[in-house]
């Protein structure tokens, strides 16, 4: 197993030589962000459960632990990490998942991994091994450096240990499918989500709307009866294929864009190829026309557009930011990684 001392040494040497480092876990998220550059720091060998207290609903693992391994440990106690982030063939690590702030179809109800994180240990750009947050549900001492790491893609430090809250595994799930147009599905999904039902998924794909309910059998059975559509006791792996981006929609998309938008915003570019998830708050678009005009449309609606696949070489893929935002991020980068050794250019060309 990789030792912390080795990781610290590697950072120290990189700083001394002013050489960029490229942080690697399971290597499952190259599709996200910009190209990696620099000498690899392999965190995947720093793995294993540090502490797990099922009665506290808290687990601490080393960052290189794979999500699947962790979920397996949790499953033995009938628990699960909420938010169902993708496991990518068992390669995704906990550290990488937090660094990319990933989640699955249940995000509107359970949040992303950022919502489960209670504390982290990181190596900063001074090669110091630091601990922030804690092992308890509530902790407001000091700035929230743990959640700041969510989405930073390693640009603000190397995650070495992550403490997460977990939830009891739902007893069962049931899905309801209904044939409906994309536009109408947005209205219906939002209407369903206003009702006090145990919804944990709301997606539109290829002419069908899928609603998922989770909980005790008696509860979801009664809830499913309130929804129009065909009840699918066995969802045929639909939700896991959605989570893992294994539906044909993803496989076929050479140009793939992901839009984060208020769920009630109108449907647009109706002729394009869409997959709508998160009850309308996430909209995937395959090969859909001019990026600039789309970007402007999304921005005007208060949303964010990211290019997931098919970006021009070297281009920025995440939403453009205001000068004030860029300055804030650059200053934070300077505070956590003064020599700029961690994942330069991975998130933005200017970071």
């Amino acid at each position: 197993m990789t030792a912390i001392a080795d990781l610290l040494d590697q950072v120290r040497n990189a700083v001394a030589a002013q050489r960029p480092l490229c942080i690697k876990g399971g290597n499952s998220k190259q599709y996200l962000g910009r190209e990696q550059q620099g000498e690899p720091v392999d965190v995947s060998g720093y793995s294993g459960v540090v502490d797990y207290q099922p009665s506290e609903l808290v687990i601490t693992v080393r960052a290189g632990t794979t999500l699947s391994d962790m979920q397996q440990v949790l499953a033995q106690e009938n628990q699960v990490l909420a938010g169902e982030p993708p496991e990518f063939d068992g390669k995704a690590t906990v550290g990488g998942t937090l660094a990319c702030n990933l989640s699955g179809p249940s995000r509107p109800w359970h949040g992303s991994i950022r919502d489960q994180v209670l504390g982290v240990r990181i190596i900063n750009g001074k090669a110091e091994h630091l601990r922030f947050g804690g092992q308890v549900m509530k902790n407001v001492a000091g700035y929230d450096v743990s959640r700041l790491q969510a989405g930073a893609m390693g640009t603000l430090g190397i995650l070495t240990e992550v403490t997460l809250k977990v939830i009891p595994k739902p007893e069962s799930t049931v899905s309801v499918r209904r044939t409906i147009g994309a536009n109408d599905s947005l209205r219906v999904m939002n209407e369903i989500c206003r009702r006090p039902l145990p919804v944990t998924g709301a997606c539109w794909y290829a002419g069908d709307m899928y609603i998922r309910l989770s909980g005790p059998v008696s509860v979801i059975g009664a809830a499913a009866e309130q929804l129009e559509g065909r009840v699918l006791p066995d969802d045929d792996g639909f939700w896991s294929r959605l989570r893992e981006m294994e539906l044909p929609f993803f496989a076929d998309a050479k140009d793939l864009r992901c839009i984060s938008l208020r769920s009630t915003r109108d449907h647009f570019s109706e002729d394009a190829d869409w997959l709508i998830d998160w009850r309308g708050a996430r909209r995937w678009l395959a090969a859909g026309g001019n990026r600039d005009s789309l970007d402007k449309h999304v921005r005007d609606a208060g949303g964010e557009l990211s290019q997931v696949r098919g970006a021009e070489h070297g281009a920025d893929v995440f939403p453009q930011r205001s000068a004030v935002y860029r300055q804030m991020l650059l200053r934070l980068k300077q505070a956590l990684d003064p020599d700029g050794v961690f994942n330069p250019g991975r998130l933005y060309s200017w970071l």
Partner: protein
Amino acid sequence: METAVLAAMFREFIDARCVVFADESKRPFECDGLSVYKQLPGLVVMPSTTEQVRKVMRLCCRHKVPVVVRGAGTGLSGGALPHPDGVLLSLARLSKIVEIDPDAGLARVQPGVSNLAISEACAPYGLFYAPDPSSQIACSIGGNVAENAGGVHCLKYGLTVHNVVQLTIVTVEGEIITVGCDGLASAGPDLMALMIGSEGMLGVVTEVTVKLLPQPSHCQVILASFDELESAGDAVSAVIAQGIIPAGFEMMDSYAIRAAEDYVGAGYDTDAAALLLCELDGTEEEVRHCAEQVTAVFQRYCARSIRVSQNEAERLLFWKGRKSAFPAVGRISPDYYCMDGTIPRRMLSRVLSEISRLSGEYGLRVANVFHAGDGNLHPLILFDESQPGELQKAEEFGAEILRICVNAGGCITGEHGVGVEKLAQMLDQFSNEELAQLNAIKDALDPDALLNPGKGVPTLKRCQEYRST
């Protein structure tokens, strides 16, 4: 800079009545909910638009004037304690609910809106805002963001940080930045989370978009009393081990039970050593299903009595005792000091017996009220400020309790924040390197240390002083 000169500058763009300079008019702002700390500010300014906040910040930044932001002033760690030479920036007049989008389950509000007002405004749509600190009638959403406020429903519904999707911030330089996204996912580091709980030290919040949830169709409380704190604590863990996440799960010790019962007559068992309140919500089937399981667990842990609320009036009555616990304790003691440590639940009986031992040592009574579900303790240390030395003794006792919490694997504050109160205890929780990192983040966003200076994170110099004593 002379505060009179600054006041004149503010009056050029803010109604003169909202720029407060006279001592007697500044008096209401001298402290927040932790009233043992008092300080008159140099100047109080109450803007009513984001644009006015920007101008205030620009002037203060240019003239290097410290700024302390204040919401409703209900904070319990002295986070809104004014600076003697600075501006107290009250956001109370930014009090509009800008937009409610019931279909998306979002509300966009200004920071001065009270926590409860959001849920009240959304109630006609069958929605509510989940975090509910006990001060929710008075406390403002801006203050909730600054402190990452919790409440009794955190275990199931999360803290403020889990229920906010977007913030508009005015930076120390008076620039506007939006962080987060009402589409749930925002690319890049979570700057919004960094702002939440930063105690007004990294920016000024001028707009908040919160998540609204459907009101559960059913809600029931199970009230159980126990002969021993330990069995009550074990019962809490056992319920959770069953796979049930109650909406609220509260514990009170005998002192708190008796004080609350004397005060509001909620029907609590005053001979018990511990009382549990377990709230379940969801669909009718869900609540019935869980209530049966929880009742069985409480029986297994030898509860003295178990009562399940039969109607809404009874549910509210059961809660009334818990919700009045602080004022109830206030009736039996001239003053009390509320602590806010968190611990892993399994450490509960160990920590409580330590607190009880210290209570004897210090000669100060303690009542314990506890968010049992999420491990957040609120020991209330009873004292009399008019007795020389008692306040200091209470503070020392409180510091000792927080040290016990840290040693038990917990932390010094679950929801009240560090403020001025727990600066020294930050050293129990963080190393010098960690504190230096936190200070570097502060320097990055507020290089002249103008925003709420001297709060939240001890400076390196103070660290050395604390560690050497």
